[in-house]
């Protein structure tokens, strides 16, 4: 079974598909990617994936905030006033208040 090699190579390392290839060492031998600035310079794929994942996670968190999932221990507690957490714990553990007879 043959595996076809990807045309661009790996996203990381010296052979990665980026705007430039190879690394440039400065006078102290500090290796730095040899990226060339220009109008046609594209944003690397890993950055796009990174931003996409971050956006999805942010939307998920926003949904959790809006729906109040998790009760008083959910992420919504970060938005509330700085009340006593222990009293909130007790209220949550005791459940809904019973109506007065």
């Amino acid at each position, binding site marked *: 079974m043959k595996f076809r090699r990807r045309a661009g190579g790996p*996203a*990381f*390392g010296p052979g*990665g*598909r*980026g*705007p*430039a290839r190879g690394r440039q060492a*400065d*006078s*102290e031998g*500090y290796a*730095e*990617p040899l*990226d*060339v*600035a220009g109008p046609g*310079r594209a*944003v*690397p794929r*890993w*950055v796009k994936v*990174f931003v996409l994942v971050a956006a999805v996670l942010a939307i998920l968190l926003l949904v959790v905030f809006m729906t109040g999932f*998790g*009760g008083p*221990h*959910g992420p919504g*507690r*970060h938005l509330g006033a700085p009340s006593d*957490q*222990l009293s909130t*714990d*007790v209220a*949550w*553990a*005791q459940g809904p208040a019973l109506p007065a007879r």
Partner: protein
Amino acid sequence: MTDVGTTGAAASRPSRRVIRKTALTAHVLCSVGWVGAVGAFLSLVVVASTTIGAKRAALLVAAAVVTQAVIVPLALASTVSGVLSSLVSPWGLVRHYWVLAKLALTSVATVVLLLQLRPILELGAQPVLDQAPGPSPTATVSSLLSLLVHAGGGLVVLVVITILGLWKPRGQIRPRRPSRSTQTAR
């Protein structure tokens, strides 16, 4: 005059290198320590969630101490040393995507940690209150679950930050300005 300038530049070069290496060493120490401390915290909370009574109380006190005395100082030191290290290195702070991604993730992780500090310290103090009729164990279990989620997520973020720092994926936001010597040569 040229000789004096060259000598001055050559004399300042080792000190710049020392500053760069020192900042990088401090940053690596703080960051790796942060990962290890979060791992220790996570293990304490995992064991605490499976036990009850005095053992759970002791584990929660230990988790609170680890957070207050180790994790928070290391997180702040890692953030500050990372910014300093990038500023004195050729990578820059906003020159490469991977540095900016690391800074963003570190900032988010530090903010979430500081938001979680109060609940963690309160859980550590809770066993004292448990002597009297106090919070129900159900509340403690849900609080522990919250800590597990936050600590687990934080550990994942820290691993991603470490991978970014080691692999240094390509991508330049803005090019490095040519050095003064290069401009003179032109």
